[in-house]
């Protein structure tokens, strides 16, 4: 039986008025607070719930929150493992964001 767990971003707003999910640091902080490393190992599927009143979910936040997962498991695993639900205008950005996370994960010589 497959296990499904949820990551409700509503629980990680900086304030009730805050409708923007932005900032790499903020994303990393949410990852740590949500214990995402353990959640994604434990669950077959992680459902990410984007609040309906979200004005925008930005790439900076996504990279902070999910780059570690893409780096560790790859894009195919990420796409199969994570499901995003919420406003369509936000959800449709996710594939581009995953591509950016993949680019961040490619080890390149520094100099």
């Amino acid at each position, binding site marked *: 039986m497959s296990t499904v767990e949820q990551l409700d971003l509503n629980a990680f707003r900086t304030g009730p*008025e805050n*409708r*923007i999910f*932005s*900032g*790499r640091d903020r994303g990393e902080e949410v990852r740590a607070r949500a214990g995402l490393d353990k959640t994604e190992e434990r669950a077959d599927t992680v459902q990410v719930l984007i609040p309906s009143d979200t*004005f*925008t979910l*930005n*790439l*900076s936040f996504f*990279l902070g929150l999910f780059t570690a997962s893409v780096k560790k498991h790859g894009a195919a695993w990420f796409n199969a493992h994570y499901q995003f639900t919420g406003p369509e*205008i936000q959800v449709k*950005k996710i594939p*581009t964001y995953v591509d*950016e996370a993949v*680019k*961040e994960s490619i080890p*390149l*010589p*520094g*100099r």
Partner: protein
Amino acid sequence: MDVAGITVNCGKASAPATNWLTIIVGGLQFLLSLLLTAYVFRKNYKQKADERQASWFHKVVVDKTIELTASYDDGERKFLSDGVEACKIILLDANLLPTQKTEALQSALGLFQDRLQSLRTSLTNLALIFDKELADKILSHTLTLDDLMSQWFLNMEMGIPNKQSPIELISDFHRDVLRSLRLFEFQDLPERKSA
């Protein structure tokens, strides 16, 4: 020559020693000149390589980046001023629902983000040819611009005054990208070479 029982060496016996000394000094001079030549050759080679690298960096990264950001800057001034004006009209439209107004602003922001994504890909790909850290810095500037512009549009929707105009945000971004290139070439690279 024997003078009062003392043998005086008139120089004949010291001649071989002088010859040896001359050979050793000559040999040392030759070795030193050889080392100096090798040092100068190596230094010139390194300098030429640095010059070639700098020339390539300018041709492939700096010139293209300046061209792309300048073109983006010009285009975005037009797109953003048109988009913002349209949003102002929408926000004042009493016939529209608040959700419709929000969607209009999100749509304007989305168009801005799409154009920025295209620039981000081009700029980071160019920087990656030379340096991952430089690419990360440029990526970071695009992310900052994205976040600041998002907050700008949300403030507009919520009726909160913005301290900077969208054009000023773009100008700050443009300046930050160019500053990163300058620091990379004139500070980071020399520091790495001397380390």
